[in-house]
């Protein structure tokens, strides 16, 4: 069987199984079992079993539950309310002020939760009503909330980044650090978009002046800074330990967990129940993620074993087309599929094929996978099937899907332009990890 026939049949079968609605882990199990039986017979099933068991007991993947637990604890420690109040104090009068607050809050929430869906649910419930009440434009508000959500998996510490780095076999520390500048650039681009639109059309801005209680005196400003210091301190502690090579990412997460427990005590939110719920949430999420990764582990090995990966590399090396055109095709495929497919599933089928290709094409892996990460996150807010938009709809049922689509469209445009900028100037992604290496 030629390499392309193997690739087409395996990917075709996987996509058909995904489309049926079978759980992703079952799709991978089924494809791997069928492939093993076809290629090696019953004796080869031991290989599949061992690949599953070795994945679930792999020390490198302990980073996943620890970063999930860190997010759970920071989220439950009561920092979000404090954060919103403090940002309201700290960000002064400017056009589009509430939109800028929403994006800043989303960025910091991103560092805390690392999940776009959790962030949209939180911002939709918490920020959206207060912004609409103050006369903000509905579409721009929804757009900013969705935009903020795209920052979450990019700004470290991010669980999705840890998973992608593990799958792509690149340094978790470098990849986490690489997310800082692109996250800030994307966040600034979204904020700039809102500010420019409110300058051009002031009717889009909030109709209510800043509450007197929000207009900060010096003492209130200092108090606001002090209130968010523990929360921001933990985020910077985790990042700092990784950035300066003091601790491994997993160890840094453990230190962060310890710090966030202390913070919950400080904010008066600590209880045995809260701690149990956070650990339970982490165990539940980890099982959901790891069973998929474990079931799919053999997939990349089978692609290599059948010669499909080598065949694809040979084929692309014979193609006389510009490598940037290939880059565009690879990213366009991700952009298309991530509208229909779960981010993790897409990662698991794309990484085994893209990994050898990007080495062959001479792209920087950190840069490539960061753009890939932004791309799949963007899929969540791209009409018509982006998952994150449906989460917003579920928390704000009164908003029509059409309105959500119109709100998301310009944000997708801004994000795509920023991705083009990062493609032209890869240093935006690679500079910080290269400097600290």
């Amino acid at each position, binding site marked *: 069987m030629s390499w392309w026939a193997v690739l087409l049949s395996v990917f075709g079968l996987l996509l058909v199984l995904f489309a*049926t*609605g079978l759980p*992703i*882990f079952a799709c991978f199990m089924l494809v791997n079992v069928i492939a093993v039986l076809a290629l090696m017979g019953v004796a080869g099933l031991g290989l599949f079993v061992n690949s599953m068991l070795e994945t679930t007991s792999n*020390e490198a993947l302990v980073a996943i539950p620890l970063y999930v637990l860190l997010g759970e604890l920071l989220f439950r420690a009561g920092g979000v309310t404090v954060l919103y109040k403090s940002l309201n104090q700290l960000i002064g009068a400017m056009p589009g002020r509430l939109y800028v607050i929403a994006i800043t809050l989303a960025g910091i929430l991103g560092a805390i939760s690392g999940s776009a869906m959790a962030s949209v649910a939180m911002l939709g419930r918490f920020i959206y009503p207060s912004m609409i009440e103050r006369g903000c434009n509905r579409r721009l508000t929804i757009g900013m909330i969705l935009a903020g959500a795209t920052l979450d998996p990019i700004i470290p510490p991010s669980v999705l980044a840890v998973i992608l780095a593990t799958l792509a076999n690149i340094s978790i520390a470098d990849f986490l650090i690489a997310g800082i500048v692109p996250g800030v650039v994307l966040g600034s681009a979204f904020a700039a978009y809102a500010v420019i639109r409110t300058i051009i059309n002031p009717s889009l801005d909030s109709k209510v002046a800043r509450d007197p209680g929000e207009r900060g005196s010096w003492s209130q400003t200092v108090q606001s800074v002090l209130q968010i210091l523990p929360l921001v301190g933990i985020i910077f502690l985790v990042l700092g330990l990784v950035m300066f090579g003091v601790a491994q990412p997993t*160890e840094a997460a453990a230190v962060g967990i310890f710090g966030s427990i202390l913070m919950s005590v400080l904010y008066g939110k600590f209880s045995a129940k809260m701690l149990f719920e956070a650990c339970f949430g*982490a*165990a*539940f999420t980890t099982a959901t993620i790891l069973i998929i990764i474990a079931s799919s582990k053999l997939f990349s090995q089978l692609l290599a074993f059948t010669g499909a990966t080598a065949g694809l590399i040979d084929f692309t090396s014979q193609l006389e087309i510009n490598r940037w055109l290939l880059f565009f095709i690879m990213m366009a495929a991700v952009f298309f599929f991530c509208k229909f497919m779960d981010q993790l*599933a897409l990662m698991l089928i794309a990484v085994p094929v893209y990994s050898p290709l990007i080495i062959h094409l001479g792209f920087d892996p950190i840069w490539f996978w960061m753009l890939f990460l932004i791309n799949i996150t963007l899929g969540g807010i791209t009409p018509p099937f982006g998952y994150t938009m449906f989460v917003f709809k579920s928390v704000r049922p009164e908003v029509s899907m059409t309105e959500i689509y119109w709100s998301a469209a310009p944000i997708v445009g801004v994000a795509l332009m920023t991705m083009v900028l990062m493609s032209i100037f890869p240093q935006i992604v690679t500079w910080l990890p290269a400097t600290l290496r």
Partner: protein
Amino acid sequence: MPLWMRWHRALTEAGARVATVCVALMAVAYTAEVVARYFFSAPLNWSGDLSGYLLCFSVFLALPKVTADRAHVAVSLIIEVMHANARRRYLRVLWYITAVVCAFVTYFIAVEGLRQFNEHVLTSAANQIPKWWISAIACYGLASAALHLLYAQPELSPSEGIE
């Protein structure tokens, strides 16, 4: 609800709680590693291996709960556009297929586990444990998940069975 089903659900809840403790222990093990390494210059040689084993136990002990709560990740576009009754029937079929896949993989893990038990195979980490312990816990997780899928009744809420 039959007694065996109640027992199965209770076992699932208990397993999820043990998985929760495993996650807490992973955090404790790594915190201990950081303290030992950076404050006492005496790195521990067991924290990584222990965390790896705890990860495996945690995943397979929580798996039945994830399945019972219908929290597995799936692409749900087709299911969402179906009418309620068709969706209920379709979900049943999907869950039966998933149960068969899980049962099939459980069988092969059990066969492999028996071989590991008979040949006294140990894990390849520095701190070794019998490998069949891992296979046994995986068998429990997948078999229990398969059982949940067999007797669960799809509900008519639009998001049932999907993420």
